């Protein structure tokens, strides 16, 4: 075999790979790019010429109409409140409980952690009916506490953090004890800084889950005053699938794309800024082959 044919054999798969990856990446980005660009087109053009884009006719009409039609600002505020409250609960109490599970012996530990593992397998919707009734009983329907408390410290976060904390060497903790550190001090000054990469991963995942959460809010926070961003979005979408009488298809489509664009931008920005932490967090803290 000549050297030339060896180089061809080496290069060709490289080119095929590159083309495959580029095409796939474009397919993954295209729908988002299309939606955001189309949101700036006149509503009629979105449906008459879905593929064309004429920058000179770009407009904010879809956005202004959408802001007037649905309580999206209110949705943003509600989502932000839930995000801050629920997010801090998860990011503090999940690693704390995981620390207890990973580094201490106590009664019922096996039973408790076993229950956590079983909860991992339960579909979220299973709890919807009884939780809804519980909230009615407590008078919490359409309140922030109903959006925040259930699921605030979830099984997956505990399971993940326990795995990460178990890998922190015990010598480190013992050394701190010798230096007079309290048990909570060990968690705060040693554990949290050491597991920071995985914690960053958990933070991004938690923010995403809360921001995107839909099933529970649509059941518990359906009033205009309490609707989260996703609930507001879904009510718009149902105008199309439910053929709202009198709604002009083009107008609703334009509003829909405007709302979708506005909803995805904040998360996309957070992700792009923090993507290193997120990816490394998952890579560092997830399962081993």
């Amino acid at each position, binding site marked *: 075999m000549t050297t030339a044919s060896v180089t061809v054999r080496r290069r060709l798969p490289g080119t095929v790979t590159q083309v495959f990856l580029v095409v796939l990446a474009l397919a993954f980005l295209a729908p988002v790019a299309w939606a955001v660009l*189309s949101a700036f087109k006149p509503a009629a053009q979105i449906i008459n010429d879905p593929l064309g884009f004429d920058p000179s006719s770009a407009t904010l009409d879809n956005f202004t109409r959408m802001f007037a039609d649905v309580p999206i600002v209110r949705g943003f505020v509600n989502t932000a409140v839930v995000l801050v409250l629920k997010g801090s609960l998860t990011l503090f109490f999940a690693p704390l409980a995981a620390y207890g599970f990973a580094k201490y012996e106590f009664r019922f530990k096996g039973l408790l952690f076993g229950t956590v593992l079983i909860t991992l397998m339960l579909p979220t919707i299973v709890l919807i009916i009884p939780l809804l009734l519980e909230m009615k009983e407590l008078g919490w329907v359409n309140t922030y506490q109903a959006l925040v408390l259930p699921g605030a410290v979830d099984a997956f976060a505990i399971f993940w953090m326990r795995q990460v904390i178990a890998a922190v060497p015990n010598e480190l903790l013992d050394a701190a004890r010798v230096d007079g550190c309290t048990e909570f001090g060990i968690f705060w000054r040693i554990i949290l800084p050491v597991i920071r990469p995985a914690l960053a991963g958990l933070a991004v995942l938690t923010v995403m889950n809360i921001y995107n959460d839909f099933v529970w809010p649509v059941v518990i926070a359906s009033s205009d005053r309490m609707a989260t961003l996703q609930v507001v979005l879904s009510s718009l979408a149902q105008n199309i699938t439910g053929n709202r009488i009198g709604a002009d298809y083009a107008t609703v489509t334009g509003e829909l794309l405007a709302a979708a664009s506005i909803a995805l931008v904040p998360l996309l920005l957070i992700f792009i800024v923090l993507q290193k932490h997120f990816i490394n967090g998952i890579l560092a803290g997830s399962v081993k082959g």
Partner: protein
Amino acid sequence: MTLAPAPPRAQAPSATSRRRPHRSPSRRKLAPYVFVFPFVALFLAFGVYPMLFTLQLSFTDWHGSGSAHWVGWGNYTYLLTNPAFWSSLGNSAVMWLLIVPVQIVVALLVAVLLDNAKTRMRGFYRVAFLVPFVTPLVAVAQIWVVVFDQQYGAVNSVLNALGLPDVGWLTTSEWAKPTLALLFLWKTTGFIVIILLSGLQSIDPTVYEASSIDGASRFRQLRSMTLPLVRRTLMFAVVLQTLAIFQMFAEPFVVTDGGPYGSTTTAGLYLYNHITRADLGTGAANSFLLVIVVMVLSLGFVRLLRSED
């Protein structure tokens, strides 16, 4: 999946560290209870209690108000003899078949390529593939409604431009499932890529070097070395997706509302429909049947993994 390796036990205490810490040992005994308490309190109130309540509810005919009547196994037999219940499970099973094999093959291929140091622009691809994953589901679902619209959608305009006829992506029962499956694939494949990548990166690179010297081709290496080594990660991904697919609710709820002709009424959406009809007893029974299905499937996959070990 395996837990992270247990850290080495602390060394025998040296002369200096044998000096007792001045804090009483009882505080150390008490600490874990304090640490897990907030979690346990929330877990009992919003996890265990509603779960037991559902169990009780599943044996009654309660409709959300008035008094509940004990109906024994009535709700369960009603569901188990109801074709609609079985077709909701069937729809989810078809979705599983449409999604999981494709997703595992594509994600594994991408992960192997991204794991290869010779591939250029790896950082860009990792971000690009994760963009759908971070995009809000409801927004994505809305984009699907618009893009796959039969009359005005972008996909059909592309088909028309190529001289092909319109396809009723969301309006015909044969296309609605694949279109929703595509949505799910597009949304979650990036995350599966990252999970598989984490499995690949835990493989010792010297394994590859040894086999390259022995003259094994890339494909042989992938089949006989990479696959067995990441099998646990693959199974983890399969279990994760099985759970997600059988719980799938928001996608059909927003995009098709379960139609056309119930072809996209997944197990999750069917369960939700009991709630909207205030048929709470049946819904509770349906919840437990779905839990059993999901658990049997998950344990089956875990078993499959074990038996090949």
